[in-house]
């Protein structure tokens, strides 16, 4: 927490520029929901914010254990921010396991709010504590608030239990709302919006709504009336660009981006997918939006999902599938078919930790090589990656533009972090979105002296005609066997195969000719060190660069949205710096590609912890490569 006024007056409202708060508890404690609500309240207060949910892969890991701890981190600020924050200022630990797991991350001197009711001998033991951390000195560096959250909740709801509106267990379950109320008071957050939200969420069960609201208010009042909390804080509204905002997660943004692409392309959206973490929410979201004409198909596996999408693309839909690494692995053969048949479609990969099943609920950037190269034969295709949750919307539209313009399958990379984190999003005006209907044409007439040649292409884009079944006179057959140039007939001719292979590469390469110039962030204009990044590391890299500049180290930054083809002006750019650093949540996949392409001695910083980079960590690494021992 960085504060501007630290007047030590009891119960003073202290102004902060920003704060990082982490809610942690058992999977059953409702921490994700608590975090979501606090996020919504902070958004309404006008803060810029970024969130980082982190939950176990197991649906119901044993209660009270470290494996069962679920957490939600929120960074909110009166300034423009780009990461969910490194170390939390405030940790709300609903049980000993949550404390055990997250105390390490807390800032020195940070605040811990403990639910003391959960600090039973058994829970301490389950968390791996030999002694109660409240009494063994391990919390001395922190400001500890011991709050009997469960007991307070039960007392607040005594009447509800007596009236038989809910049982004791049900009452206990409202303890997350009590914690939320208390933290809301701490940060001067209004709770009326959450009250309204609870009323509508439990519309069918008014007694539950009432119990939750009662607990929420009890938490707020506890902060207000007890003397335990000397300060409370305020983070004012951030000077965001004027306009209407909402919070959006990456998965929501992909789903909305797809619907927007369908609307702007004037094509029906077909979405075929097989459930997999962390991509399933895209399917869930789209399944709710059928009134946009969206057809969703939950296939029997990922191969069928992309198969259905190839069929729908042949039929003239904007056809899309999404998965995560293991599912993308299953789709590879069909992606090759889409490359060979030159159909426009999108494959979204919400990356998670690998290899194999890996870390289903954690984030990683390790599928870049998979989507670039994971197909048999020479099968190049375009790849774009999202930088932030809301950028998933724009990147999805960009992918649709490329797919439709060049009639080619396009991969969209997101990751577990983007998928589930939220940030405020300045709502675009629909009329300002790219008019994708102008990016392509459906072919309705023969193109070769009264005949139709399905592989006769546009000279500029090299796109082949998109002739849809139902069109008389344009009957044609496509498939995975090599095609003859123009006619599209099966051909085993050696020279033709080489020509077609070159053509498939050239088709992808030409996409780069239509890309805007790279934007380099270098406020001083004098930086000799460049940081190049892609995907969700964008926020941490940006924050790290800002830190370095504050310390007088001039560093430039460039973010790559297009990973295939790489932008035309990239080579020149990389060659013009003394040092180029490329941080990735993988073992150096992009840096290897950039080295091979530019022969620049790119310095890679690689870590795969399942978590996004902390900006401190990145700043240290960049400094080391740029000015330190490794320079």
């Amino acid at each position: 927490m960085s504060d501007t006024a630290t007047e030590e007056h009891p119960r003073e409202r202290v102004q902060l520029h920003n704060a990082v708060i982490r809610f942690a508890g058992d999977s059953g404690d409702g921490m994700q929901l608590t975090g979501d609500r606090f996020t919504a309240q902070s958004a309404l207060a006008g803060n810029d914010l970024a969130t980082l949910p982190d939950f176990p892969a197991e649906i119901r890991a044993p209660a009270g254990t470290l494996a069962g701890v679920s957490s939600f981190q929120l960074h909110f600020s009166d300034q423009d921010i780009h990461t969910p924050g490194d170390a939390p200022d405030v940790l709300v630990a609903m049980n000993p396991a949550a404390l055990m797991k997250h105390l390490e991350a807390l800032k020195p001197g940070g605040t811990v709010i403990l639910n003391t009711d959960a600090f039973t001998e058994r829970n301490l033991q389950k968390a791996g504590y030999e002694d109660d951390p409240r009494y063994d000195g391990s919390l001395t560096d922190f400001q500890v608030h011991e709050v009997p959250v469960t007991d307070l909740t039960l007392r607040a709801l005594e009447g509800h239990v007596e009236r038989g509106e809910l049982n004791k267990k049900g009452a206990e379950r409202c303890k997350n709302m009590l914690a939320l109320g208390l933290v809301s008071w701490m940060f001067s957050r209004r709770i009326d919006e959450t009250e309204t939200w609870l009323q509508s969420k439990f519309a069918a069960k008014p007694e539950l709504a009432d119990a939750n609201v009662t607990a929420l208010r009890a938490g707020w009042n506890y902060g207000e009336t007890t003397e335990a909390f000397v300060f409370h804080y305020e983070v004012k509204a951030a000077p965001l660009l004027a306009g209407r905002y909402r919070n959006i997660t990456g998965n929501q943004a992909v789903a909305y981006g797809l619907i927007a692409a369908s609307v702007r392309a004037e094509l029906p959206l077909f979405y075929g997918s097989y459930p997999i973490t962390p991509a399933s929410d895209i399917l869930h979201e789209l399944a709710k939006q059928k009134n946009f004409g969206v057809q969703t198909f939950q296939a029997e596996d990922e191969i069928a999902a992309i198969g259905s999408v190839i069929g729908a693309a042949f039929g003239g839909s904007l056809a899309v599938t999404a998965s995560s690494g293991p599912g993308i692995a299953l789709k590879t053969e069909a992606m090759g078919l889409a490359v060979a048949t030159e159909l426009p479609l999108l494959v979204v990969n919400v990356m998670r930790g690998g290899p194999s099943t890996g870390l289903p609920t954690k984030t990683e950037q390790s599928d870049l090589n998979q989507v670039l190269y994971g197909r048999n034969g020479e099968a190049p295709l375009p790849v774009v990656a999202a930088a932030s949750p809301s950028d998933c919307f724009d990147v999805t539209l960009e992918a649709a533009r490329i797919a439709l313009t060049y009639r080619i399958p396009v991969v969209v990379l997101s990751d577990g972090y983007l998928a589930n984190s939220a940030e405020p999003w300045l709502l675009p005006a629909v009329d300002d979105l790219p008019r994708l209907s102008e990016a392509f044409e459906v072919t309705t007439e023969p193109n070769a002296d009264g005949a139709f040649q399905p592989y006769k292409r546009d000279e500029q884009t090299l796109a082949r005609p998109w002739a849809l079944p139902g069109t008389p006179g344009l009957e044609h057959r496509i498939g995975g066997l090599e095609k003859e140039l123009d006619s599209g007939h099966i051909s085993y001719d050696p020279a033709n195969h080489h020509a077609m292979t070159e053509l498939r590469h050239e088709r992808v390469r030409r996409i780069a000719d239509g890309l805007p110039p790279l934007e380099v962030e270098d406020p001083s204009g004098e930086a000799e060190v460049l940081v190049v990044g892609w995907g969700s590391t964008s926020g941490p890299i940006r924050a790290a660069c800002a830190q370095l500049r504050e310390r007088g180290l001039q560093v430039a930054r460039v973010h790559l949205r297009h990973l295939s083809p790489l932008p035309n002006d990239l080579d020149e750019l990389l060659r013009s710096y003394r040092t180029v650093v490329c941080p990735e949540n993988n073992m150096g996949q992009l840096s290897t590609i950039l080295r091979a392409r530019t022969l620049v001695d790119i310095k890679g910083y690689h870590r795969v912890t399942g978590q996004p980079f902390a900006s401190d960590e990145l700043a240290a690494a960049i400094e080391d490569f740029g000015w330190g021992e490794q320079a």
Partner: protein
Amino acid sequence: MTTNEGKLTKKDFTSDREVRWCPGCGDYAILATVQSLLPEMGARPESTVFVSGIGCSSRFPYYMDTYGIHSIHGRAPALATGLAISRPDLDVWVVTGDGDGLSIGGNHLMHALRRNVNLKILLFNNEIYGLTKGQYSPTSPLGSTHKSTPLGSLDRPINPVSLALGVEATYVARSIDTDRQHLSEVLRRAYQHRGSAFVEIYQNCNIFNDGAFAALKDKDRKDHNQIRLESGEPITFGPDNERAVVAEPDGSMSIVPTEEAGDRVVIHDPAREEPTTAFALSRLALNPVGPTPIGIFRDVDRPVYDDLVREQVEQSRAQQGDGDLQALLASGNVWDVG
């Protein structure tokens, strides 16, 4: 290229590509039958799509002057499902083989059938992997000796009709490549059926598995072995109808001399909701080396998956109104700055 005016003929469905199957392959006969039948049934080349997987049989779409996709091994039902859902105006046919449809693609076949997607699925069963030059397939009889099984195959074969009935396919039939009349009739009914129609076609691979269906095709044997299923008729067969199919107390079926059958003889009813009787019929022959039923095993009406998908879209439109993108983007909590 078709002119699309006036009455269409076989020529309008025949592409200019040279047919490349081995001379004598059963695929030729099936192709000729389909090419003649489609115009006869009023199909339009521009509204017809053939989707196939990989195999000799899967080259089929190249020879049809319709739309077509020669896809990847085993996945044709998946592609066809996406196409059928998104394009109700098309006639979507799937051509697959015993390896393509039952081995690598067994999963997709099963799910397309149980969903009852509006597809006409033709499974060319030659009891062999033709394209890869003669390995045994999931329909090869137990103990078959082929390239990969010099000492005899060890795994029990799948009976494709039993499989289709097991997942409650709504139209299930079997025919023979060279029996043009029978095949035409079975395909005609398949075309008229809304929902998944599954047709197993015994197809001779004269190169790697010649004579696999001799029991049903040889002049002097076929009358003894073809059990021709006719709706509403007692199931009897043989040159003089001297044999009959009867139901046993345990639910299975067996073959007895007609004079002993009495009223135990099974009256064929493909419209029966329950697939159990049809399934029992399919078990009369695990492989077609003796008496084997051919014809339509099952033909029932059930809601069609792709119709239902589209209905949900229409319902949502009726209930929520046409999607409004600006409103969608601004759904949930919004706040204004400035």
